[in-house]
């Protein structure tokens, strides 16, 4: 870009200044992010790695740190509650993650193929849960899931009396937040409710990016609608699926707000609503053990990393960076 100027034998001061600032301007423009990341991202991460090998209670001051090697890691790995929290997190991620995508893809297709007039309105409605406060909505669901008087049990029981489809619904009230077996489905419901719209929007974007000529060409070649879906839509939606699933995965493994509010911070009956991040929070604040908490997050990060790699193998191509 600067070629025309540099070929001149002598440069005026102004031209030199122009060249100089043009050369260094981009670094100046992108530097805020990298400075912030270094200070509030990278440094804390390295510090937490360091911390995970120390025995330390935050209340006693920085001087009282003691190197303990891998003990925090072995302590976590031999702690049944840690394993249970990890298992809960995994179950919740699957129970909430898979339905999100199974609902979002047909929904996106339905929106994509429906009349243009209602498209924006419908998308807005489905996106609404994503923009509302997680805490506020978890509080609402807390009341809706109430055992004796909750709207969800009332609705399910009412549906049970409907002929034909009735047997699909329970006749008895489900103790959603009091029964160890029902807590996870309850939490998953809230998450599905909240994030399905977000995923729908992602898939809608993916669908709209597929060139229409492909379908027209396929139609001329005599492909039916199922074949079009199978050989055009699905393969071209793969990068979107990869991104959406990766985001769900990373989000799912960091669940905190929804289970925290729905179980009132307790983890619920039998601790089935205790996620790893909740347990980490408890270890740090209630047990005041910073080293153990730091090691726990690194173990969680390891799990997320492995799963992301696995996801990469299944769906991935270029990943989030994408080729545009």
């Amino acid at each position, binding site marked *: 870009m600067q070629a025309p100027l540099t070929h001149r034998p002598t440069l005026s001061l102004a031209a030199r200044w122009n060249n100089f600032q043009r050369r260094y301007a981009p670094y100046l423009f992108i530097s805020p*992010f990298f400075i912030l990341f270094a200070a509030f991202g990278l440094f804390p991460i390295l510090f937490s790695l360091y911390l995970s090998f120390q025995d330390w209670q*935050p209340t006693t001051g920085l001087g009282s740190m003691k190197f303990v090697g891998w003990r925090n890691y072995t302590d976590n790995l031999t702690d049944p509650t840690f394993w249970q929290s990890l298992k809960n997190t995994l179950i919740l991620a699957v129970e909430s993650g898979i339905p999100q995508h199974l609902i979002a893809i047909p929904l996106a297709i339905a929106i994509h193929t429906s009349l243009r007039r209602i498209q924006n309105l419908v998308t807005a409605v489905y*996106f609404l849960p994503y923009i509302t406060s997680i805490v*506020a909505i978890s*509080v609402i669901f807390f009341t809706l899931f109430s055992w004796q008087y909750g709207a969800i049990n009332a609705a399910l029981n009412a549906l049970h009396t409907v002929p034909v489809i009735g047997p699909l619904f329970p006749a008895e009230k489900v103790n959603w937040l009091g029964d160890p077996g029902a807590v996870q489905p309850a939490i998953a419901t809230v998450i599905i409710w909240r994030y399905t719209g977000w995923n729908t929007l992602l898939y809608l974007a993916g669908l709209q990016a597929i060139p229409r000529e492909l379908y027209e060409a396929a139609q001329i070649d005599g492909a039916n609608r199922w074949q079009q879906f199978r050989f055009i839509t699905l393969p071209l939606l793969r990068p979107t699926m990869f991104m959406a699933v990766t985001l769900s995965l990373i989000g799912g493994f960091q669940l905190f707000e929804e289970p925290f509010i729905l179980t009132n911070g307790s983890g619920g009956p039998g601790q089935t609503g205790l996620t790893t991040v909740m347990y980490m929070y408890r270890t740090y604040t209630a047990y005041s053990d910073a080293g153990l908490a730091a090691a726990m997050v690194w173990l969680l*990060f390891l799990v997320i990393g492995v799963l992301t790699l696995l996801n990469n193998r299944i769906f991935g191509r270029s990943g989030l960076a994408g080729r545009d």
Partner: protein
Amino acid sequence: MTVSTMAAPQPRTKKATVVPLSRWAAYLLLFFGGLLTLAPFFFMFVFATHDRSDIFQLPPPLWFGDNLQENYRNLLERTPFWRNLWNSLYLAVMTTATTLFFCTMGGFGFAMYEFRGREPLFGLLIATMLIPGTLNLVPFALIMQALGWIDTPRALWVPGMASAFGIFLMRQYIGTAIPRELIEAARIDGATEFGIFRRVVLPLTKPAMATLGLVTFVQSWNSFLLPLIIFRSDQTSTAPLALRSLQGIANTDWGALMCGVALTVIPLLILFVIASRQLIAGLTSGALKG
């Protein structure tokens, strides 16, 4: 992969081949799905107008009651709720304003310049998006303690001034929506690089800024775990924290809590009504494609 611009979504031709029956099935699906999506909002506002005994009765109240004033009074008795809403607003506005400025700048840098290290730096930026936010929670709290920023909003908005997602979004938008010739023309007219950013790029990226601004605002407004660690007093805490503290106490006043819930959500709903068209257009076109 094609990239459409945010400003002009690809015009789609109506499909004549859709079977009416399947279209009705799609409508039905969309309608009932929408109903389920909206139901909790409905209950939110209905519950805000009832007292505890009404909320927990069978069947649950399905229409508005007359207890709103009482709930509102109780809410303000238990927490300085307007103060908390103000804290949330202050935090969200500061985060959003700075994020818009720095992310547009970063996006411009990545989209419009050739410079040594551009690709690896952009790769690094993308990689940071994959790092779970919880990874640095404990040291984050310690740093804020060391800086003396506990119980101050800057503990949250200063680290949030620029986001990888925001720069990614802005780079995509600026790269597709602003012609390079325009930048060159400004240079020939003698504008400095920062002048180009301020006079040419900033005004032209408004549509993408609306999207990023709304997403950032909502995220900041909703954040819970970090504020939970940073804010320790009633006066400094944000609206979600106030709701949590209302729920946590032994004898929860559900009416007051619901009133607080509604007050926390209403600003977001208003913002969404104003900006939803822009947001959806921004998110569905170009910006987020994998």
